[in-house]
C-alpha cells in the first residue's frame, strides 16, 4: 500500500515540474539568477512564472482536489459508483446558471455568476435525485444514464439560447476545462473549493453513513435530509466555482474516488486526503501531458482527462473482476 506522505511528495514534485514547463523557458537556474542576480532580462521570466504558471498550477491543484471530492460525495449520496457532477446534470445546470447571468446581467461580477451557478447546480442535482426516486429499476448503470440524459436536456436548452444570443463560444468555455487562460486575478475564487473540501472532511462521517443508506442514517440519529442538503450544497458549489473559473473537468470525480475506494474503501474520514491528493495529482499529470505531447501547442485538459481517465477506469474495472480478496 502506498503511503500518503509518499504520494504527497510525488504531487509536490510534479507541482514544481509544472512551474517550469511551458512556452517561454524558465529553468530553476534562470529563476535563481533573477531572484539573486541583478540581471533585468531574467526578471521578465520571473514575472512570467508568477503571473501565469503559479496561478495555473494552484488552479489545477484546487480544481482537481475539489472535483474529486465532489465526485466522491455524489457517489456516497446517490449510492452509485458511476455518479459524479458530469453524470448527474450538475455541470450542465451550473453552466445554464452562468449563461443566465451572462444574458440577464452582463456586467455582473464573477462572484454573482458563481452564486447563481451554485443555485442552478443545486436545483439540477436535486432534480436528478428526485427523478431517481421514481425510476423503478435502480440498476447500477441506469442511474448515471438518467443523469447523462438530464444533463443532455439541460445542455440542449443552454445551447439553444446560446446559439440565439451568439454565446456558443462562452458556453463551450464553461463546458470544457482549460487552464491556459488562468491568470492572477482570475482564479482566486477557486480557493473556495479548498474551504469546501475542508468542510467535507470535517463532516466526512455523515457522508460515509449516508452511503450506507437512509436506514443507517436514521438509526444512528442523523437527519437524512440535512446530510443530503449539506452534501449537495458542497458538490454544487465546488462544481459552480470550477465551471466558472476553468470550465468543467469530466470524468475526474469518477476515476479518482473509484481508484481510492478499490485500495482503501469508502470511509471518507480516512480516504478524503487520498481523494483530494489523487484528484490534484491526476489533473496535474494530465495538464503536463497536454502541454508537452504537442509542444508548443496545448491539448485541452478535458481531452487529456477524458482519454487518460477512461483508460484508467477500464483498467480498473477489468482488474477488479480478476482480483481475489
Amino acid at each position, binding site marked *: 500500500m502506498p503511503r500518503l506522505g509518499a504520494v504527497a511528495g510525488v504531487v509536490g514534485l510534479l507541482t514544481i515540474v509544472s512551474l517550469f514547463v511551458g512556452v517561454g523557458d524558465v529553468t530553476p537556474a534562470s529563476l535563481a539568477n533573477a531572484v539573486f542576480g541583478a540581471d533585468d532580462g531574467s526578471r521578465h521570466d520571473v514575472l512570467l512564472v508568477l503571473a501565469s504558471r503559479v496561478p495555473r498550477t494552484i488552479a489545477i491543484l484546487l480544481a482537481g482536489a475539489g472535483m474529486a471530492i465532489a465526485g466522491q460525495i455524489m457517489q*456516497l449520496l446517490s449510492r452509485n459508483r458511476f455518479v459524479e457532477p458530469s453524470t448527474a446534470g450538475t455541470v450542465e445546470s451550473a453552466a445554464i446558471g452562468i449563461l443566465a447571468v451572462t444574458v440577464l446581467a452582463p456586467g455582473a461580477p464573477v462572484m454573482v455568476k458563481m452564486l447563481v451557478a451554485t443555485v442552478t447546480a443545486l436545483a439540477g442535482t436535486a432534480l436528478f435525485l428526485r427523478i431517481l426516486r421514481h425510476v423503478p429499476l435502480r440498476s447500477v448503470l441506469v442511474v448515471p444514464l438518467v443523469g447523462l440524459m438530464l444533463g443532455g436536456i439541460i445542455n440542449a436548452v443552454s445551447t439553444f439560447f446560446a446559439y440565439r444570443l451568439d454565446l456558443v463560444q462562452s458556453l463551450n468555455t464553461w463546458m470544457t476545462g482549460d487552464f491556459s487562460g488562468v491568470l492572477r486575478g482570475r482564479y482566486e475564487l477557486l480557493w473556495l473549493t479548498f474551504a469546501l473540501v475542508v468542510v467535507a472532511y470535517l463532516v466526512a462521517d455523515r457522508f*460515509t*453513513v449516508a452511503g*450506507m443508506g437512509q436506514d443507517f442514517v436514521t*438509526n444512528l440519529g442523523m437527519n437524512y435530509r440535512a446530510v443530503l442538503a449539506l452534501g449537495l450544497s458542497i458538490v454544487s458549489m465546488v462544481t459552480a466555482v470550477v465551471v466558472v473559473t476553468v470550465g468543467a473537468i469530466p470524468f475526474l470525480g469518477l476515476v479518482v474516488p473509484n481508484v481510492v475506494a478499490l485500495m482503501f474503501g469508502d470511509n471518507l474520514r480516512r480516504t478524503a486526503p487520498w481523494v483530494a491528493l489523487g484528484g490534484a495529482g491526476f489533473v496535474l499529470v494530465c495538464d503536463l501531458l497536454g502541454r508537452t505531447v504537442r509542444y508548443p501547442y496545448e491539448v485541452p485538459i478535458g481531452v487529456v482527462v477524458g482519454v487518460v481517465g477512461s483508460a484508467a477506469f477500464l483498467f480498473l474495472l477489468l482488474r477488479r473482476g480478476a482480483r481475489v480478496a
Partner: protein
Amino acid sequence: MIDVLDAVKTYGSVRVVDGVRLTLPAGGLTSIVGPNGAGKSTLLSLIARLLEMDGGQVLVDGLDVTSTRSDVLATRIAALRQENHLTSRLTVRDLVTFGRYPHSKGRTTPEDLEHVARALEFLDLEPLADRFLDEMSGGQRQRAFVAMVLCQDTDVVLLDEPLNNLDPRHAVAMMERLRAAVDELGKTVVLVVHDINVAAHYSDHIVAMCDGAVMVEGSPREVIRPEVLSSVYGLPVEVHEIAGRPHATYFPPGRPSVTFSIA
C-alpha cells in the same frame, strides 16, 4: 419498555400493520414470529422510526418515536433491518465503529474503541476486522451488522432475522450473547425469527403475527402449542416435550427410507 398503540401502516389501500397494540416490558427477550408478509418487519421498522406511521403511536421509554429527536433516540434504540445491502466499501471495523456514532459523534474515544473491540470479539469477527464487507461471506457480513448494532449499546435492540445466513454454531453463539445482554445488562431485545424452536428456547415472550395483526402473544409455553402454531402458519405443527421444553416439529411424516443395493 416499548408501547405500541394502535400502530397502522398502509401501502395503497392495504393495511400491512393494522392497529397493533403491544406492550413489551423493559428487560426481556421478545420474539416476533409469523408467516411471510405478516407485517413483522414493518412493525419493527415502525418501532425503530425507520418507516413513517400512518396511524397510532409508538413509545420507547415513554418517548414518542415520531416526535423525539432522532439523535436522542439513537442512544436508546438500535435496529437492524432484514436486508442490508451496502454499495460502499467499508471494513468490518469501520462499520462496527459507526455503531458508536450516536455516542461519539465521530470523535472516537478509548471507551468507544473498547466497545468496538468487545463487539468484534463477541461475534467472532476479530480475524476479519480489517476485511472489506463486500469481500466476505453472507454469514460473516450478517455478524458484522449485528456487531454494529450491539456496539451502539442501547437499552432497546431490535433485530430483524439476525440469524439469517448463520451456521448453527454462530446462531447459537449469537442467541447466547443476546440472552446474556438481557440477563446481565438488562437490555430489551426484540427479534423477528422464523425458527420457532429458537424462539421457544430463548424468549421470555413470543408475539405471533398474522395479516398485520397480533394473533397471539404470551410466554413460550402459551404460544408453542400445536393448535396455536398450526393456525398461525396454516401448517400442521406438532409440539413435543424434549428435555423438559416444548419443541415444535412441522415436517410431514417421513417417507420410508430407501436403500439402494447393488445387485
